[in-house]
């Protein structure tokens, strides 16, 4: 009897092992993605919006017949570079991620550096990125197109003088610096140019200082809530609406105080289909970065699917995957039509909107 039971156990164990081996042979190779996002803190709306969009994308690919299985892991960096670096090391060394995702500004640079050293693809959505790591892919508007959209509108409105005010964060400072250099070349005098610390809620004296220079237009650039608080105080003091925001305003749902009727903002385009799908799923407007990271990861996954692995390898190399992405040249996705450059910058389109009856309406040509 004992012998019978023992033989039965051996047969069952053998069968189980064989079945497991068969399953392993059939299972797709896993491509892991690590996303370090600001999921808490003042700018968490950007991180949560990005996570929502990336989840939507993962769901789309999970319902598609693919060569590889894609898995995403999220970590919170609170938009702190040190935490983003820790998360990136964890993604690459522990989770063995092939792709790391971060947002912008202070966090994407350390993430880029670590990922580049380890030949891992680093996807970000930084505005005005001036570093081009070999393994980097950045989907975000650059200074030129945002400035050009603003310039076109200011010229149309016959503005001769502008005041520039924005936060002293790297992204805002770079764009306003670029604008301060370019406006005079186009015959628009910059009569005021100042930065404030992120988090400031009292702009009254700066507004008064700007008012003394009587600019035709105020060009502002800062993340929320600063943009909204500034606009509220500007309206309280001057009662005017001659404001043009280079971003933030029209691109995110968070508003501390609603914008003033008629103010202008550069708008990062999103496809209506994506906006509709996002709203149906999360009942919220698409945040800045969300559609850009969605498109960036979509491009990378598509490239993985269409790139053949080298002989003896299960998955294609990251260098080959990125080359495939860059060879696309253009991409029509959640952020509309975009140009893909050889340096890893993907440029989404922008246009100009004005605030009217609670909506951002496109300024007609």
């Amino acid at each position, binding site marked *: 009897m004992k012998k019978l039971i023992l033989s039965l156990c051996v047969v069952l164990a053998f069968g189980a092992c064989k079945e497991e081996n068969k399953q392993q042979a059939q299972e797709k190779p896993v491509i892991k993605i690590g996303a370090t996002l600001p999921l808490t803190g003042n700018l968490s709306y950007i991180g949560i919006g990005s996570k929502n969009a990336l989840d939507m994308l993962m769901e789309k690919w999970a319902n598609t017949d693919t060569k590889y299985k894609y898995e995403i892991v999220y970590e919170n960096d609170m938009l702190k570079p040190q935490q983003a670096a820790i998360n990136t090391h964890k993604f690459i060394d522990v989770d063995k991620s092939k792709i790391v995702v971060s947002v912008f500004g202070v966090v994407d640079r350390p993430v880029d550096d670590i990922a580049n050293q380890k030949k891992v693809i680093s996807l970000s959505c930084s505005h005005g990125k001036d570093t081009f790591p070999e393994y980097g892919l950045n989907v975000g508007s650059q200074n030129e197109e945002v400035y050009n959209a603003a310039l076109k509108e200011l010229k149309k409105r016959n503005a001769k003088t502008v005041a520039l005010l924005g936060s002293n964060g790297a992204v805002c400072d770079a764009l306003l610096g670029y604008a301060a250099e370019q406006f005079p070349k186009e015959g628009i005098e910059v009569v005021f140019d100042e*930065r*404030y610390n992120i988090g400031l809620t*009292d702009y009254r004296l700066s507004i008064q200082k700007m008012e003394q220079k009587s600019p035709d237009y105020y060009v502002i650039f800062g993340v929320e*809530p600063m943009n*909204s608080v500034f606009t509220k105080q500007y309206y309280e003091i001057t009662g005017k609406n001659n404001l043009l925001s280079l971003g933030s305003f029209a691109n995110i749902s*968070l508003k501390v105080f609603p914008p003033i009727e008629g103010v202008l903002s550069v708008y990062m385009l999103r496809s209506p289909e994506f906006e509709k799908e996002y709203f149906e799923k999360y009942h919220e407007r698409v945040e800045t970065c969300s559609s850009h990271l969605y498109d960036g990861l979509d491009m990378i996954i598509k490239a993985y699917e269409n790139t053949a692995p080298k002989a003896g390898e299960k998955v294609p190399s990251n260098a080959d995957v990125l080359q495939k992405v860059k060879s696309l040249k253009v991409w029509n996705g959640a952020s509309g039509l975009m140009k893909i450059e050889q340096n890893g910058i993907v440029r989404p389109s922008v246009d100009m909107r004005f605030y009217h009856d609670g909506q951002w309406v496109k300024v007609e040509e």
Partner: protein
Amino acid sequence: MLFVLLINVLIVGAGYGLIAMAFALMCSVSPFFNLTLGSIIAFGAYGVYALTNLAGLPVEVSIPTSIVLCAVISALLERFVYTPFRLKGASSMVLLVASLGLYTIFESLIHLAFGPQYQILGGVTAQNVDLGVTSIPKVQFITIVADFVVFGLVNVVLFHTFFGKTVRAVNDSAKLSNITGLNNNKIILIVSLLAGFVLGLSGVLTGYDTGLEPTMGFNLLFKGIISAIIGGAGTMAGPFLGAFFLAAAENIGVMMLASEWRDLVAFVIFILFLMFRPQGIFVKKEK
């Protein structure tokens, strides 16, 4: 421009002044850096947010309710947290660490209940008060008035009532006041109730002016503490005037340099005072 600068100093200084006076009031009977005072400021703003924006109550109900709740919370914290610590002979360092722990808990609770986002308070229509050369929003005007009224009331209570005498007695020597039969804990409890009331009011006014977010209390308390130290925390005129001094320095910094110098100016002044005049501008007269 000078008038505008003056108005701005009044607006900013009044905001700092309310907090500085509440801090100095608490310090007069319980001398330690009580960081939960920052939580009380945030409770004031979030109280109105919960009652008006979420529960739909009119501001006439939600604002006083929120302020009274802040006073009650402040007193409860004193009664059930700091008094037991004090009775066990805890040092001011222990009380500071306890308040830091509580502050972190309260901030996390606000995060969980209302989210990390900036919010705005509803229920009132924005109106401006005309000051001739310029006009300012009504809420800022109320902040200035409230600062002066609170200063006046605190002085009346401290220097013209029996309760004020007992507060000053505890301030002079807690041991002596106890020996003479005063109930120190009861006095500290009432003072914490008053401080909670002022901090709640400050939170509501700030919430209406610039919006609210979970860490708002700490940032405001910090400026209030700097004002109190600059002015002299041992007096009541010190924190009141120190707030205007700090606001003036910040605003002159903004006017002469740029907005991004604002905090730098404030902290340089703070460090200079700590180094060369730690007792502040106004010093309590020793009898």
